[in-house]
Structure formats: structure tokens, C-alpha cells
């Protein structure tokens, strides 16, 4: 089972089961689960609309590549635990992570 905890932009927290989404990006998955996800660039790590904070379990994720880090550098609200959810693939390691979606309508 892969289950993660998601805090949306309004602050409400919910557990989400990801079993059916293995191999897809976390951004697409969250969109499929009904989360508001503008994703202007469609998942190319260019727009940062899918910016999220990894509140717990960051070490279980593959580290970010340069393209992702470059785009995060352009976010005024980026933090050390910032990631772009379009660059994270759903896999068993995600089980138990805790994320917060960040705003894009700034």
C-alpha cells in the first residue's frame, strides 16, 4: 500500500491512497485525486505551479535534478524541503510521506 498525507492550499489535511498510480507523476496523481493543480507547463519542471513542501519523509524520495532545482530557485517561497510534484514518480518509497501544496496564484 502507498498512502501519503496531503495538506491542500486551504490547509485541510487528508490521507490519499496512490496504489493505482505507480509510475505516474505525483502532480498528475494529485490532479486525478481532485486537487487543484494548474500545471501551466504540463509537468516539464518549468512553471513551479506544482510546488509542494515535503513535511515528512523527504529522505525517501529520489533527490531533485538540476532542472527542478533551477525552477525552484525562481520561487520566492521555496524552502529547503521544496519539491516540484511533477518531478516525483509514484513508487513504494512514497508511502508515509507528508506534503503541503504551495500556492501559485501569487
Amino acid at each position, binding site marked *: 500500500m502507498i498512502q501519503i498525507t496531503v495538506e491542500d492550499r486551504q490547509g485541510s489535511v487528508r490521507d490519499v491512497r496512490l496504489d493505482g498510480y505507480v509510475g505516474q507523476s505525483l502532480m498528475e496523481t494529485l490532479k486525478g485525486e481532485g486537487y487543484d493543480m494548474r500545471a501551466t507547463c504540463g509537468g516539464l519542471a518549468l512553471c513551479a505551479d506544482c510546488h509542494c513542501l515535503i513535511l515528512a519523509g523527504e529522505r525517501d524520495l529520489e533527490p531533485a535534478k538540476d532542472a527542478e532545482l533551477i525552477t525552484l*530557485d525562481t520561487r520566492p517561497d521555496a524552502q529547503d524541503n521544496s519539491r516540484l510534484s511533477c518531478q516525483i514518480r509514484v513508487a513504494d518509497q512514497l508511502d508515509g510521506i507528508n506534503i503541503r501544496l504551495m500556492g501559485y*496564484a501569487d
Partner: protein
Amino acid sequence: MKTTRTEEFVTTDIAIIGAGPVGLFAVFEAGLLKMRCHLIDALPQVGGQLSEIYPQKPIYDIPGFPSITAQALIDGLMEQIEPFKPGFSLGERVDRLQQTSDKRFIIHTNEGTTIQAKVVVIAGGLGCFEPRKPEISGLDLFEGKGVNYMVKNPELYRGRKVVLSGGGDSALDWTLFLATIAERVTLVHRGETFRGHPDSAEKVFQLARQGTIDLLLQSQITSLGGNGHLQTVTVTDKQKNASVLEADYLIPLFGLTPKLGPIANWGLGIDNSALLVNVHDYSTNVDGIYAIGDINTYPGKLKLILCGFHEGALMAQSAFKHVYPDQKPSFKYTTVNGVNAF
């Protein structure tokens, strides 16, 4: 290309708001029917999302081009519409749209340009690209009074104390440039490194080592001070140590993000930040105003360049009745009629 500026008055058949791929191709479809166009875009260059977000990415679903980079497609569109001599107001945002008693439209931009047209085509995509703003309390109090999100006129900073913040290419490039004319330049960056452009990053580190600029890494701007005009910037580092810097200007450089913006206030039918249209001709609920490309919505809408081109062709046939009320549009293949330049 001509960029009009400062209080210009333009008269045209069709005013096209947005010079992305869809707005550009609409000039061609309108031109075939002998309608003149003027394009307005908030960005300083044409091409919309393609030139602003992904100029070097290849696109694979443009008919007849197995692969074409976004910028090459825009360059091709510019060449294709050249015979129809469109006018351009670039770097200007359309703020207001009015209708006169004789059913013409008047468009006002934030730079004071006025455009009078018989038809308005909104090809505004995802909206205006606007600077991303960092969350610093009181930031808006100093906007235009020391806080600028773009470097429009570098001379403004000559001999002044300037703080820049950001970690992308534009933050690095402007730091290097302003270091040559400002009294003191400080670059504040949240990270430890700059991944964008290794060359400019190396130059910035070198200037910092030489003491020519101040580089504050792993730091963030937390508050601003001043009396009417910016005077100080407070920077807080990772260990939560705050220091107050004297600053005449703060330039936060965090890229651009699209916002629907003024289009939302023009009394047009809207659903979820997109304009509702009639799929027969992509007209809005106001006679004479059309919406094509990413900005519109209808059942089955796909945000694709291809679909926007189709919408432009149908729009032009319908717009003809507003421009030439006494004539019927004649549909002819370009192979038969060619492209008759203005």
C-alpha cells in the same frame, strides 16, 4: 517590428489582445478576408507561452512539422503574417475595454495607448504574465517607491544602493550589470548555489570575493523600512540572525506567472478563469467580441495550439460581418487565391 509607446491612438478593423501563437495566426485568417489587425501584448516580445516559457522545447503536434521548436514556430508565424502588416503594441497590458454608441470598441492600455476597432479578439491565453512577488510584509507599500520587479531603466540605479533577490538567471545577470553602475549591489539568495547559469554564477562569486558586491546566501528578505520611499531592507539568515541594510532600491526577481488579470472585469461570461464562447464562431456573450485559444472554454475544449488555429479561422469568417456589414465573406482556398498582401 514596430513597438508603439506612449499615448498612441490606433484605428484598426480587429484589435487582438494577446500575441501568442493563436493571436498571431488570427492575423493571417483575418488578412485573407481583407481585415486589418493590431496586436497588443503585455510581454515585450511576441509568442506568448511559447517564447516566454519554452522557446527551445520541440513541439510534436503541429500538422506538417514532425518536430519544431516553439520559437521557430513563432518565427514562422511572424513571417506568415508579414504580408498583412499587423500593428503591434508590445509591453502594454490592456486594462479597459469600452463600447461606443456606434458599436465600435475602444481599448485602453496601461501605457496610455488607445485602440479603436470594429471587432475585438481576445487571445489572452492564461492571462497576463506578471512578476511573482515574494511574501514580505509591507512590500506593496513600497512598490514603485523603491521596489521594482523589473529593470526597465538601468540608469535609475546609477550611484544608488541596490538589493536584488532571487536565484535565477535574471537575478545573476542584473547583479553583474548593476555592479558596474550602482554604488553598492547586494544579492540575497535563499540557496547556497546558483544552478541556472554556471558562467554568470562564477562571475558573481568572483565579484563577491573581491568585495565588489555583497552576496548573502541562505538568506531571505524579511521586512522593509522607509518613509515614503524605501530606505532599509532586513535580511534574515538560516540561523535567524537579522541584519538591516541600507537600500534605495529592492529588485525581487522571481520570474513571471500568468494571471487572468483585467479580462475578468469586462462583463464577459466566465467559467473557471476562461471565457465562455459559442462554438459556431467563438464569439463571447458581447456581439463583436471573440475569444480564441487557451483563454476560452466550451464543452470538449483542449488547450492546444492546433485548436486555437482552427478557432481563429472560424472567428474570422464571423468577424467579417462586423467589418464589412454589406458584404458576404467569400471562402476561397489560398491555393486558388494566393495571399494578397496589404
